[in-house]
């Protein structure tokens, strides 16, 4: 059996393009899922009962469905429901965002709930409004607890973006599989793909470890 690693170098532009799309998906998903997650968490914590119920149902639905199913669902069902034919990239982004928003909202909710009631009372006893107490006392503390969790979600998301390859979004996994199919260089392409994901993912994971130490809460 002979290996031909030159196939990787020959397709470097395509692989670089796929890698760029992977990063784009990760950034864009988080850019959507952080504010949306915050909104869903706020609705679950403070919304009127029916809104709370809807927000809870959303979170429990998307947290407990396999992401790949959501990706397929967004690809086949969303256009029928909305009448919109979205490009594959936007569809993939929608699926990832639905999933990660659900996770992030739970992260935010847990972070806010983890702050003792006495902290809000101390703020209010000084004469702060609820909004001021949230902004000056609860949010800064919650953020410290939330940041490491969001960082872990980021690292998972970076790898999970590969799932949107099933709907032909040209990110790293899809591009690698395409090259594999065209050149029949299975081992080389899978190895190259693994190497790229690992080399990019490992520093991010290390960064998360550092963030978790940096923001460790001492009381």
């Amino acid at each position, binding site marked *: 059996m002979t290996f031909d690693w030159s196939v990787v170098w020959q397709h470097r532009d395509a692989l670089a393009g796929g890698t760029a799309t992977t990063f784009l998906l990760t950034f864009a998903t988080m850019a959507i899922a952080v504010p949306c997650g915050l909104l869903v968490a706020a609705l679950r914590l403070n919304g009127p009962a029916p809104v709370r119920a809807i927000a809870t149902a959303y979170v429990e639905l998307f947290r407990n469905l396999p992401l790949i199913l959501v990706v397929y669902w967004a690809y086949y069902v969303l256009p029928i429901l909305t009448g919109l034919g979205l490009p594959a990239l936007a569809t993939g982004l929608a699926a990832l965002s639905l999933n990660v928003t659900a996770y992030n909202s739970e992260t935010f909710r847990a972070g806010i709930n983890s702050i*003792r009631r*006495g*902290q809000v*009372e*101390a*703020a*209010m*006893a*000084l*004469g*702060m*409004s*609820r909004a*001021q107490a949230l902004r*000056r*006392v609860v949010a*800064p*503390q919650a953020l*410290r607890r939330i940041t490491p969790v969001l960082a872990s979600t980021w690292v998972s998301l970076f790898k999970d973006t590969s799932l949107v390859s099933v709907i032909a979004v040209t990110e790293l996994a899809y591009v690698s599989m395409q090259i594999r199919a065209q050149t029949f260089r299975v081992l080389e392409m899978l190895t190259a793909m693994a190497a790229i994901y690992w080399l990019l993912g490992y520093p991010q994971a290390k960064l998360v470890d550092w963030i978790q130490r940096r923001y460790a*809460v*001492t*009381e």
Partner: protein
Amino acid sequence: MSNASDLSLTRVKAGGSTIIRYMEVVKRYGDFTALSGVSLDVYAGEVVCLIGPSGSGKSTLLRCTNGLETIDGGDIEFEGSRLARDERGLRAMRQRMGMVFQNFELFPHLTAEQNVAEGPRTVQRSGTAEARRRALAMLDKVGLADKAASFPSALSGGQQQRVAIARALAMEPDVMLFDEPTSALDPETIGEVLGVMKALADEGMTMVVVTHEMSFARRVGDWVAVFDAGRIVEEGPPAQIFDRPATARTRDFLSHLGWNG
């Protein structure tokens, strides 16, 4: 009744203006009645100590004073006007009442100085420089000027509670509410907190203190109210409560604590 010892049985500061007036205050939690019609006056410059067994309603009354708990009946007057029921009015009143909690409740993400400056800065919008100046002055007052840059996690319980007192004082309140300020402390740091409170009382600060420190109530208190099962069973000057308790309830409570005059 004209001999000198009876002077200790009068309410010395009753001539001043009434700062807080509790009138038949009722508070319920579901089926449980925490306060069943409590009436009590707090005069300017007085140290009023609320004592009694756990769960007798003392802390609840204190928390009703600044609206952390809403009342279900009766009324509370603060400086001559009815305690506000709306957020806005309540916030204005809270700025004139300092509160100190059993568990300190310092903001762990802020230094001692930032904790004390937070009220002036965020609530009174006094400007960063003025808030800082006031924070350092208050920390100095509680003997912790050298801990200004420390985070609460680096302070002992007693130090944290003194910072919490400084934080409340920075708002320049008319009355200070203390909710079991030494109950969460190690015995060796209780003294420093009581010392700060005593100094505050000597300056003429009006104080309502929920406490299990009977010697503090005896020495520093001007007036003592004994709670039992959501009522005040007896009130009077410390000399009466501790030396000549009028009710069996008070005697029981004090003897359980091993108090023998």
